[in-house]
């Protein structure tokens, strides 16, 4: 009899303890990016550090949310990325995947996330299809996209007086898309496109194309390319003295780490668009100092900052929803305004586009730079509504009427 009472009381006690335990939500986040190749510097381990910082700053443990972070290298191969994503979702109980640079891998992860009904917050990929044709109720495209880059560099440059353009376009679909979007914006703002040259992709020798660009007398040379092509063309433009001759180089997809590896002597005068720069205000400086300490002195790129910001917003949504159910959390994330020290106030749109301002920067001359990583001066700010594709033009099936 006594034993029976004992058993029932323990059972009751266990039952009462259960709701208290349920308060504890444990989430698992996977940071999937390039850790060995072309994009390792701008995402890589830095993005994992950024995600960890978000968990610390949110004080997740005190709020009853247990967060575990895993990471992996997708080697910029869609099949490797998609196997990892599937394993994470199916076997390891991962709830959301962050970062994912390289559009082909991002689109694959986007699709798998939708199938498995999890959450994907993309910071690293450029393709505006992620919130366009390929948009999904499970994906948020956080940091930037090709549309915003074209708007920023194209539109703002024309307004700043760069009204005649010459494009050097990497001859593949991504280069063509960048050129098409940017030249549309240039002409819309009253500028002129004087000429286009298609460069073989991937290329190493850009000298003859640069000479054509120089001879065109265009005020701005638009580099509709990415990665190694961009680095090579900027280096060679420096050797031809193109910026010294008064023409401006506009990089359509250039990151802080690219400028760092090029050096100011080569990259000076280059104009580019980003959504985050570490030296914008006290908050970004403070955060970036902490980040740099953890990341061997390297300042954060916008991609890494985006991972921090996305992770933070996710945790806020989990706290508010008191659940980690994907649909509930996604609804919360779209409903709550975003606010963090790096991107300021913003929102997440119905098509999964995160809205914030973009900035047009010019790379400083070596003499203007006060120290390491002091690379950009701000030319202008592009408000979110102008920077990103308006919903009315969107091809996203989620918002189409």
């Amino acid at each position, binding site marked *: 009899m006594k034993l029976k009472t004992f058993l029932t009381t323990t059972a009751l006690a266990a039952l009462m303890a259960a709701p208290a335990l349920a308060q504890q939500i444990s989430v698992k986040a996977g940071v999937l990016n390039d850790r060995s190749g072309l994009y*390792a510097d701008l995402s890589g381990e830095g993005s994992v550090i950024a995600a960890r910082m978000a968990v610390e700053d949110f004080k997740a443990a005190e709020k009853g949310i247990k967060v575990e972070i895993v*990471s*992996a290298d997708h*080697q910029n*191969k*869609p099949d490797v990325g998609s196997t990892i994503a599937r*394993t994470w979702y199916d076997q390891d109980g991962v709830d959301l995947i962050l970062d994912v640079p390289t559009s*082909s891998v991002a*689109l694959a992860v986007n699709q798998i996330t939708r199938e498995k009904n999890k959450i994907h917050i993309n910071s690293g990929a450029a393709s505006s299809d992620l919130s366009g044709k390929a948009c999904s109720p499970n994906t948020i495209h956080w940091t930037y996209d090709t549309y915003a880059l074209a708007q920023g560099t194209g539109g703002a440059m024309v307004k700043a007086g760069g009204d005649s353009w010459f494009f050097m376009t990497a*001859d593949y679909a991504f280069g063509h898309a960048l050129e098409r979007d940017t030249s549309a914006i240039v002409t819309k703002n009253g500028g002129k496109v004087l000429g286009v040259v298609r460069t073989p992709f991937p290329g190493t020798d850009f000298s003859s194309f640069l000479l054509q660009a120089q001879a065109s007398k265009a005020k701005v040379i638009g580099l509709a390319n990415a990665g190694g092509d961009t680095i090579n063309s900027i280096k060679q433009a420096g050797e031809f003295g193109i910026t010294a001759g008064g023409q401006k180089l506009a990089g359509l997809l250039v990151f802080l780490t690219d400028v760092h590896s090029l050096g100011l002597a080569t990259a000076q005068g280059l104009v580019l668009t980003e959504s985050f720069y570490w030296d914008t205000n006290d908050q970004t400086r403070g955060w970036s100092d902490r980040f740099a300490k953890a990341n061997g002195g390297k300042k954060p790129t916008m991609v890494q900052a985006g991972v921090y910001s996305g992770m933070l917003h996710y945790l806020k949504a989990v706290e508010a929803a008191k659940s980690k159910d994907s649909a509930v959390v996604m609804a919360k994330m779209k409903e709550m305004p975003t606010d963090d020290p790096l991107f300021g106030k913003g929102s997440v749109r119905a098509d999964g586009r995160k809205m914030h301002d973009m900035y047009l920067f010019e790379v400083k001359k070596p003499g203007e730079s006060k120290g390491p990583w002091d690379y950009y001066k701000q030319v202008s700010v592009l408000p979110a509504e102008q920077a990103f594709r308006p919903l009315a033009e969107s091809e996203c099936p989620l918002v189409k009427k």
Partner: protein
Amino acid sequence: MADIAATDAPAAARSSGEADKGTLRLHRAIMIGIAIALVIAPFVAYPVFVMKVLCFALFALAFNLLLGYGGLLSFGHAAYFGMASYVCAFTAKNWGLTPELAILLGTAVSGGLGLVFGALAIRRQGIYFAMITLALAQMVFFFSLQTPRFTGGEDGIQAVPRGKLFGLIDLADDRALYWLVAAIFMAGLLAMYRIIHSPFGQVCKAIRDNEPRAISLGYRANQYKLAVFVLSAMLAGLAGSTKAIVFQLASLTDVHWSMSGEVVLMTLVGGLGTVFGPIAGALVIVSMQNYLASLGAWVTVVQGVIFVICVMTFREGIVGVISKWIGKPL
């Protein structure tokens, strides 16, 4: 002397016949072992991962058929693998073909591609042959890069439906798809085995070992070479198409020259010219890519070190070394 020779010859023939029988029995046992492993695998390991290994193993088998038994080093096998994967993905997504038809179509197209490329390449030998295949494969790569309407450019063809096998069995379930992939792999392996041990395979080996002698014996060497080239391209295509259905995507990675390099690596690590070597090689390389992914930058370093160790210490590959130990061809 003559008497001794006369009495010895049948004995030698008998013992070699017995050895052949022993080898045959061993191979049969290994085949059954592989089949059993395939049945158990999805319950032990993650099915999608096993499917990936199987696709690459089939690809490596195809490559090994050409290099190990035909003696032809093609450095452009990614072309057949990738083109088949594009055709399969494209037809399954845009024409709504059922997966088995899409896979067959992909295989057929890569067979056709193999026929054209092979006919050009077999006119030269050695390094020239390898370079021609590489050049042709690069043409396929740039074709894929420049035709975004067909291949989706660098984004690839995404969200390929897995569809229903014969319009009946829903392949969205990983387990169901696994059985299909396992069956395709097993069929490919058996076909390969049959080809190697057929009279046709024997002639190929003879040409590999000494082409002028084979020609002087009256064999049309070029026809045999072309045939084995096409067979290899078709098997590679089968692997590529299956991969497109498994991962629901086809991308530039599949046609890139580094994919051609990867398959050479798999075959060498596993054991060139052995029946089962490429399977072991694919398992090792794909596992490394997968399980070392969290090591980040170290993946490629580790891969390189393993390759160097492999070349320095056991050049016959994993299965090649085992085969040496037991003294039987594997």
